[in-house]
């Protein structure tokens, strides 16, 4: 079950099936497998939900997950988590499950490929203005780029782009390095030592999933919140005056 050799640093390079220029790489296979796993799992669990005192352990798991994510989002953004929970929660669950499933031999985490992480980061890049415009209007959202002065416009735009790049490379680098270091250690000091490093890699994977979701939420919050604070300040000033 060894799909990747030590020379390949990304599951993109594992080709399962090729027809002409159309090729199905390991990233695609495992991403769709993961999506199938998540969707079928949630459908199976949510098919018979109970509102009574006794509930199945899987429903309990989902309730803890969704409730915890909503709580975290509410704490970071200080807003109602409702509109943000589907997007940020999906990002978190996808990355988390993908990183945790690396314990299964032969599973290539899709997040260890720069294509997947870049796609996720681009999703965040697109969603931040959407939430910002929906909440503050087009003018209100665009105004934040020329604050405090017009001269900050290029820096704000560069910041927007560079944080997207950082989001993608951070996740990719962490997960790729985890699997790669285990592979290198297997060649150098087999059997016992790689197990500990693999456990450390699992911890890193969970933390990185959390970080990715938190950063996405922080970016969304910064695009949606500024106006509320300013209007509140204005109200306070008006009251004082």
């Amino acid at each position, binding site marked *: 079950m060894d799909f990747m050799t030590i020379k390949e*640093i990304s599951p993109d390079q594992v080709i399962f099936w090729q027809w002409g220029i159309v090729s199905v790489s390991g990233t695609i296979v495992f991403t769709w497998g993961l999506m199938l796993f998540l969707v079928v799992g949630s459908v199976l669990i949510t098919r018979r939900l109970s509102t009574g005192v006794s509930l199945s352990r899987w429903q309990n798991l989902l309730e803890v997950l969704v409730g915890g994510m909503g709580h975290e989002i509410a704490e970071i953004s200080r807003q109602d988590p409702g509109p943000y929970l589907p997007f940020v929660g999906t990002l978190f669950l996808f990355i988390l499950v993908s990183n945790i499933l690396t314990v299964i031999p032969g599973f290539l985490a899709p997040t260890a490929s720069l294509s997947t992480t870049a796609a996720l980061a681009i999703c965040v890049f697109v969603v931040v203005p959407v939430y910002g415009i929906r909440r503050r209007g087009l003018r209100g959202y665009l105004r934040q780029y020329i604050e405090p002065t017009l001269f900050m416009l290029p820096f704000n735009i560069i910041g927007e782009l560079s944080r997207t790049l950082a989001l993608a490379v*951070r996740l990719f680098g962490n997960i*790729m390095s985890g699997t790669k270091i285990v592979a290198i250690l297997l060649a150098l000091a087999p059997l016992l030592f790689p197990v500990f490093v693999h456990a450390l890699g699992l911890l890193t994977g969970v933390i990185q999933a959390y970080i990715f979701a938190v950063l996405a939420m922080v970016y969304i919050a910064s695009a949606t919140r500024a106006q509320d604070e300013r209007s509140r300040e204005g109200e306070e000033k008006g009251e004082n005056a």
Partner: protein
Amino acid sequence: MESIALIGMASIVTAGLTIGIGAIGPALGEGRAVAQALSAMAQQPDESNRITRTLFVGLAMIESTAIYAFVVSMILLFANPFWDYVISQAGR
């Protein structure tokens, strides 16, 4: 010197230097951040949850610079475009 040997040597030495030097800054930064967070938690144990969360986010941000260096060194070692080019030229 032959170009294959030259490129191989330069890649290996540069990869080592990249991760070696690139790890210094983030290591110092993370040490400082953890030390500050520990003293803050010792002073305000009630706030330890919030401090821990901010600490993890901050550590990931600091660590990402080291990860960039690591990615570059991995590319130099395993997916070196110059090496691939020379090999493809030699095979011709």
